[in-house]
C-alpha cells in the first residue's frame, strides 16, 4: 500500500460521504459547509494526480470565494430548514434507480478490465499539473482561448455591475419623484 493510495482512499471516501451530506441534509448551512469539506477532499484527489495548481485554485476560488458568497447569502436571508415535499415513487425515481444499477455494473466491468490491461501514463504526466507547466501552456499554445475567456469574464463583471447599479438608480429616481410629488 503506497502513500498515494492511502491519501486517495481517505479523500475519496470522505468526498463521497460529504457529497451525500450536502444533498441530503435539511439545514442549508450544513449543506454549504459540507460542500466546502468536499472541495477539500477533492484537493486531496488532485494532489494524488500531481495537479498542484488545480488543487490550490480549487481551494482559492471554490472554497475561498464562491462558497463564501453562498454562505453569505444563506446567512443574510436566514434561510430555515428545508420543508420536505411529499415523496412519490414517480417515473423519474424509478428511472434514476435503473441508471444507478447500470452505472454500478459499468464500474464493476471497468475495474475488472483495468486490472488485466496495462495503462501507460502520458509523457511528462507528473509535471503537467505544476504551476510552471500550466503557465507556459496558457501563455503560448492557448493564449487565444485564455484571452477570450478573460474578455468573457470582464463582460460578465461589467454586466453584473450594470444590473445592480440600475436597480439602485431607479430607486433613487423613485424617491426623487416622490419628493417632487
Amino acid at each position, binding site marked *: 500500500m503506497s502513500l498515494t493510495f492511502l491519501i486517495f482512499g481517505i479523500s475519496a471516501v470522505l468526498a463521497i460521504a460529504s457529497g451525500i451530506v450536502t444533498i441530503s441534509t435539511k439545514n442549508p448551512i450544513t449543506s454549504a459547509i459540507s460542500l466546502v469539506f468536499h472541495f477539500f477532499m477533492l484537493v486531496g484527489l488532485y494532489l494524488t494526480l500531481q495537479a*498542484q495548481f488545480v488543487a*490550490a485554485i480549487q481551494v482559492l476560488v471554490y472554497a475561498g470565494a464562491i462558497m463564501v458568497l453562498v454562505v453569505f447569502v444563506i446567512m443574510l436571508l436566514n434561510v430555515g430548514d428545508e420543508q420536505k415535499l411529499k415523496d412519490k415513487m414517480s417515473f423519474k425515481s424509478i428511472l434514476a434507480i435503473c441508471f444507478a444499477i447500470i452505472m454500478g455494473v459499468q464500474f464493476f466491468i471497468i475495474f475488472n478490465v483495468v486490472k488485466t490491461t496495462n495503462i501507460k501514463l502520458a509523457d511528462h504526466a507528473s509535471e503537467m499539473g505544476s504551476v510552471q507547466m500550466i503557465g507556459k501552456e496558457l501563455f503560448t499554445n492557448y493564449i487565444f482561448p485564455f484571452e477570450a475567456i478573460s474578455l468573457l469574464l470582464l463582460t460578465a463583471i461589467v454586466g453584473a455591475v450594470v444590473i445592480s447599479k440600475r436597480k439602485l438608480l431607479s430607486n433613487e429616481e423613485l424617491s426623487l419623484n416622490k419628493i417632487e410629488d
Partner: protein
Amino acid sequence: MNEILWLLLIFGIKAIIIISFVMLCAAAFVYLERKISAVIQNRIGPNRVGPFGLLQPFADVLKLFLKEDIVPKNANRFYHSLAPIITLGVAFSVFAIIPFASYLKIGDRVIHMGIAPNINIGFLFVLAMTSVGVYGITLAGWSSNNKYSLLGGLRSAAQMISYELAMGLAVISILLMSQDLTLTGIVEAQKGLKWNIFLQPLAFIIFLTSSFAETNRSPFDLPEAEPELVGGYNTEYSGMKFGMFFLAEYANMAAASAIISLLFLGGWNFPFIYEWLGFANGSVELVLVQLLVFLAKMLFMVFFFIWTRWSIPRFRYDQLMNLGWKILLPLGLLNILVTGIILMYI
C-alpha cells in the same frame, strides 16, 4: 508501509515543534502587546506574575481554561464550537510552508527547516489558506444568533475577500522578481542586500496594508469595533473558545510577520554576516544563525504591528473599502505592469 510510517514520523515531529513554537510565539506576543502598549501609554503593564510579569500570558490561559463555557440559548451549538477550531487551524496551517532557515545536512540526508517549504504551489498555499480563514469568523458571527456578531462576521468576510486581491497582486510582482514560486526560492533571490523592500517598495506597502486587513488588526479591526459592535464576531464566546480566537489573532500576526520578512525583508539573508562567519552550507551553526536572523526580523515586524495598533485610530468602513478597491488594487496592477516592463528591458 515502512516508508509511510517514516514520513509520518518526520512530519509529525516537525508539526509538533512548529505548533508549539507558534503557541509560544502567541503567548509571547500577548505579553509584548501589553508591555509595549503600556510603554506607549505611559503605564507599567503586567508586572505581578513572575519576573517582569513574564508569566502573565500563561496565567491568562489557565484562567480561560477554568472559565465556564457559555453557549447562548438560540445559538447553533455545532457551528458555535466549530468556528474557533477553523480559525485556529487555518492560522496554524500557514506555518506548514514557512521555511525557518535554509537546510541542515546530516550525512547524506538533507533536512529542510520547515514542514514543506519547497512545494510547487508555494505562495498560492498561503493565499488559499487565508481565504478559507473567512469561514471561521463568518460562522462564529452567524452561529451566535446575535446581530452584532453577525455584522462583525460579515464585515470581516467582506474585508478579507477585498484585501486578498491586493495582497495577491503585490505578491505577483515579487514572483516576477524572483522567478520562483517557492518561499525558499524567493528568499534565495534576495541574497545580500537585494531585499524586496528596497526593490519593490510599492509592493511592500500594499502587502503590509493588506496583511493588517487580513489579520483584522488595527487600524483595520472593524470586525471587532467595540463602539459599534459590542465585541464583534466573538461577543458570544467565553472560556477557552474565546481563548482560541484570541490565540488565532496572534498566530495570524506571527504568520503575517514571518511571511513579510520572507518576502520583503530577505528572510534569513543579512549582508556581510555570513561571509564574516564563514560557516559551511548545511552546518548546524549556519542554520542557527539563519534562524536567529529570521526570528529577529519576524520580531521586528510583530513590534511594528503592535506599534501601529496603539498609535493609529480605526478606519471607517467605507474608507476601508475605498482604500482596498480604489487605491490598493489599481496600484498593485500598475506595479505589476511597471515591474514587467523593467524586467523585460534589463
